[in-house]
């Protein structure tokens, strides 16, 4: 396949933690405007996979190639990878609790990241409007000046998704976005992710099969650090191995 149809390509990656192989010869690829769900039992290596792509964990072997220019992400700092266009939402919502919703979103907003640029940065009218828009999208419109530590678990999840929207990366890695959300909130989150996938690559890790089904996208099943199956949701849910290790339990 030619380079331009792949935004991220992970090939033959392995990671060992103290002799334990968390990722085992994993290969994965995603296109520039594609939605992908990643499922798998606890400890399958889903979060570790995201750690590798975002530079938090360095793989022992393998390649991680990014973008049109085929840049290798291995050895790049987390901040540089983020600036290259990869955004991440963590499994446990991590927003800056002491700061307001507005400050959290403003910090994430796409802009120059250098200290001197940040020191003299002033929001333009569009940037202010963008923050308001995002707050609207994530259901926090009236709460911009609230301290984010006061938000409910589900609202924090959304705030973090909002920060991803503000960052506007090419690839979004979203780890368990629906945990702690009510059914209505989950539905809203699916819609949001689906609309994002029209212009971005989105990787969603989720345990809730209903949620995954609604995403209506290709599914990758991870097990013991490598890909067990890949294909449509109906395809993978009929796979006997997938039923044995994950769905059947």
């Amino acid at each position, binding site marked *: 396949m030619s380079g331009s149809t792949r935004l991220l390509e992970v090939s033959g990656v392995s990671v060992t933690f103290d002799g334990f192989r968390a990722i085992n010869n994993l290969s994965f690829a995603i296109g520039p405007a594609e939605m992908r769900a990643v499922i798998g039992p606890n400890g399958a290596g889903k979060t570790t996979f995201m750690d590798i792509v*975002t530079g*938090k964990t360095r793989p022992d072997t393998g390649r991680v190639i990014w973008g049109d220019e085929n840049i290798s992400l291995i050895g790049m*700092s*987390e*901040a*540089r990878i*983020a*600036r290259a266009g990869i*955004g*991440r939402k*963590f499994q446990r919502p*991590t927003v*800056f*609790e*002491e*700061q307001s919703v507005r*400050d959290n979103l*403003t*910090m*994430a907003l796409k802009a120059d*990241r*250098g*200290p*001197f640029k*940040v*020191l003299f*940065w*002033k929001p333009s009218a569009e940037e202010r409007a963008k923050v308001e828009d995002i707050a609207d999208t994530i259901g926090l419109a009236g709460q911009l000046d*609230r*301290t984010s530590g*006061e938000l409910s678990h589900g609202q924090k999840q959304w705030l973090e998704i909002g*920060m991803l929207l503000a*960052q506007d990366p090419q690839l979004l890695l979203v780890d368990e976005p629906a945990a702690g959300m009510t059914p209505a909130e989950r539905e809203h989150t699916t819609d949001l992710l689906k609309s994002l996938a029209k212009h971005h690559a989105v990787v969603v890790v989720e345990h809730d099969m209903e949620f995954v089904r609604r995403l209506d996208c290709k599914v990758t099943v991870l097990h013991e650090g490598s890909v067990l199956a890949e294909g449509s949701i109906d395809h993978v849910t009929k796979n006997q191995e997938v039923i044995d290790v994950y769905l059947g339990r």
Partner: protein
Amino acid sequence: MRALPSSVPWFLGILGLVVLAVTVMSEAVGTGLISTSFLKVLGMTLCFCLAALAMDVVWGYCGILSLGHMAFFGLGGYAIGMWLMYARTEIIVAANLAGRAIPPTEAELRDAIGSQIFGVVGASDFPWVWGFAHSLPLQLAMVVVVPGLIALVFGWLAFRSRVTGVYLSILTQAMTLALSLWFFQNDSGLRGNNGLSGLQNIPGFLDAPQAAVALAFFLASALALALGYVFFAWVVSGKMGSVIRAIRDDEARVRFLGYPVEGFKLFVFTLTAIVAGIAGALYYPQAGIINPGEMAPIASIYLAVWVAIGGRGRLYGAVIGAAFVSLVSTWFTGGGAPDIDLGFYRVDWVDWWLVLLGVSFVLVTIFAPKGLGGLVDLWTERRGRDRHGADLGPDQGALREREAGE
């Protein structure tokens, strides 16, 4: 210009009133109720407050517990002290040699200055570090350049290897110890443990009475503190403040937003080191003397204690802490506090003050983590209640008000 926090006008107003009151009571232009030596203490306290502001930004806002910022303070003091000492010695030596039939050559003059300054350590040649001492503008530049450069190099090495937390604090202590030991050596060319003295005599104003000089330095220190407050309030408002507080709370997360965390730490560390240097440059002409003991590791620990007692993470807290603790300390160690005779033991405050300070520090850390600055919250909350209390219902009011305040 972005909106500054509301503490700025309050701070400037209160500082202005204090300055006015002190000036009116000074010996130079006022009633003389405040002695010149106490005026100097007040001026020096303002310099401590400025250093505490810098400490609060690097520690309270950015989360870097630097235990080395008083070393930068001392470096600023040495930088200005070298010019003061050189220039004054030059005037004295020139006056001595003026009486001779043959006017002294440039080299003779320089040798004479050298043996005057370095006689105490048995030397007379100018060491390389005194290369700029003849020039006020260059030495003023050194006030900024030397602390800035040392902070930049040290910070670059430390932050790049991602040293954080208590290890970083220990590293800053090691840097401070190394610096003060280097200054203690006679070979370093800074007069070893004698330090620099006579700094209260300002060349160009040698005939001016000390009362006037002290007032001038007091006013300059107040101005520097005011400017420092406005500047840091500007730095920590806006997005920069947001990012550095985020780094304090969860630096790993900040990296995933694309911010070069190490660069921000280096920026804050260096900037605050420079401000500490400026504070030191204003302090030592009022103290009159500087020696390497002033840069000892313990001095930087005191700075952290002041900020902790005042309440970190709020600029006025640092100022309150530094002013309160250093003035109380002066009172205790200066024999102001009467000794307590317990019959079997006499509590001598000069010795026991440090114990009292240590205990207060522990108590504040445990029971009042917001420090003295937290008292201001009590007051602003009450004011908030007075203003809004009527509008909100009697029962729900309390809750909604808390939300409104936060």
